[in-house]
């Protein structure tokens, strides 16, 4: 079925099945790859059609908001099939990180994964349903709050709790509206304002290996971070999500539990650009140290 695979003529289930098979069979994988190239040659000879220029503008705006994926050891069946795990792993480590999607590869967890895992291959393949993509870029609640806070800091020049009362009152109305609607805690609002007013405010979206993602906004200078989960799978009552801050050469330090993933988590702990934020599933009540492989890892660079 390598031919049908390369022409994308398989349904999802068949596709997963053959990718499993390709992961086991280097010859078949090589053939599949050559067919993929051949298909590309067929495309090469279509008459080019220039898309409308407006499309490019909106695309460029979109990618400036879109994180790139980390290089991945189990990135596709071809890699797995070629049996060149070392080479791939080496590439994963040596690949330069992007300036924006700066989550390091979860090397350990990725290496632990079976390379032929159909979920993995499917996920890492290029097939991402449109609606899933859309949901991943939907603005989360705190991003809306952050936008309000940003407006405030812009207006007052020195932050939400600045001295220009008029501007503050103006923005207060917006915030109150958000507050009544969305129950923003004072603490949360203050933290957002602190982060937004800092010189190194950074926004980052980290995908979870179990689906869903964490949206972060943080400032290393202010040692402040706010985390909003989106679409994490619900856990059984004997488990909880736990956040970790991991500094190089040190044991992971708990950054609190995420007992209600719908609520923002506020973190005010020591953090640097070398610190990695991680999320793991732990027994209810949390753990001293992570007991499972984190499902989210990201460098706070």
């Amino acid at each position, binding site marked *: 079925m390598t031919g049908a695979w390369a022409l994308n003529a398989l349904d999802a289930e068949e596709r997963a099945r053959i990718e499993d098979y390709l992961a086991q069979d280097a010859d078949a994988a090589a053939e599949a*790859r050559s*067919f*993929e190239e051949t298909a590309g040659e*067929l495309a090469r000879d279509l*008459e080019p059609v220039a898309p409308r220029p407006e499309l490019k503008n909106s695309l460029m705006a979109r990618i400036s908001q879109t994180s790139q994926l*980390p290089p991945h050891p189990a990135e596709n069946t071809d890699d797995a099939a070629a049996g060149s795990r070392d080479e791939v792993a080496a590439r994963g480590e040596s690949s330069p990180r*992007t300036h924006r999607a700066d989550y390091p590869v979860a090397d350990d967890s990725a290496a632990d994964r079976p390379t032929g895992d159909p979920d993995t291959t499917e996920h890492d393949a290029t097939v991402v*349903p449109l609606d899933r993509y859309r949901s991943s870029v939907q603005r989360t609640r705190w991003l809306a709050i952050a936008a309000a806070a940003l407006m405030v800091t812009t207006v007052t020049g020195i932050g939400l709790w600045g001295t220009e009362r008029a501007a503050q009152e103006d923005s207060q109305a917006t915030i109150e509206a958000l507050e009544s609607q969305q129950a923003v805690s004072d603490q949360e609002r203050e933290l957002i304002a602190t982060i937004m007013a800092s010189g190194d405010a950074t926004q980052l979206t980290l995908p979870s290996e179990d689906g869903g993602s964490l949206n972060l906004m943080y400032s290393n200078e202010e040692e402040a971070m706010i985390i909003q989960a989106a679409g994490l799978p619900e856990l059984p009552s004997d488990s909880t999500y736990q956040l970790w801050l991991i500094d190089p050469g040190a044991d992971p330090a708990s950054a609190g539990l995420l007992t209600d993933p719908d609520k923002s988590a506020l973190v005010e702990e020591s953090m640097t650009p070398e610190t990695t934020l991680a999320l793991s599933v732990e027994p209810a009540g949390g753990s001293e140290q992570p007991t499972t492989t984190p499902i989210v890892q990201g460098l706070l660079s």
Partner: protein
Amino acid sequence: MSPDPTELDRARPRPREPDLEATGTEDSAGAALAELLGRVALGDEEAFSHLYDETSPLLFALIKRVVRDVSMSEEVLQEAFVEIWKQATRFDPHRGSPHGWICTIAHRRAIDVVRSSDASRRRDSDEGLRNIEEKVVDVQEEGIMRVESQRVQVAMRSLTPLQADAIRLAYFGGYSHREVAGLLDIPVGTAKTRIRDGMIVLRDRMGVTS
């Protein structure tokens, strides 16, 4: 929703020689694309902008060929490029050409959309069946042959008619191999074999190395 051939002729940037060998121009174009992709993998938006300029007319043609609806094609094109942006970090020049890689991404996106939007109409109703039949007529008569370059045409001519039809329906028509089997009135297993045999011939005729 077939492209107007005269308009396409105007849009065509350069004539293509009908040779079967990969040309030096393509090699250097491939190297340039690989270099661009490498920069895109570093988050270089300017490189991404160049990559878009270089490749979007071709990818748009491919997507439009499969999706047919223009506004839907435009959306697919954007999704494909977002995907290229996100996945550039994972492109490995040792495993395939940049051209093949971006075409795969665009084609899969196009297929996804065609399958999801057309699925019920195409598969579950009599009307859908008629649509499929009409499309086949479209594919065969009004045709793909006209927009293929001579290079592909020559390679295609070395296929049996059944192989060529199966590959065209699958790649340009966006049909699954089951649908291809139904359309050509052959068993599913035969469709798979025809597609694979045909791809082997095309690969060898077009000098694809892997």
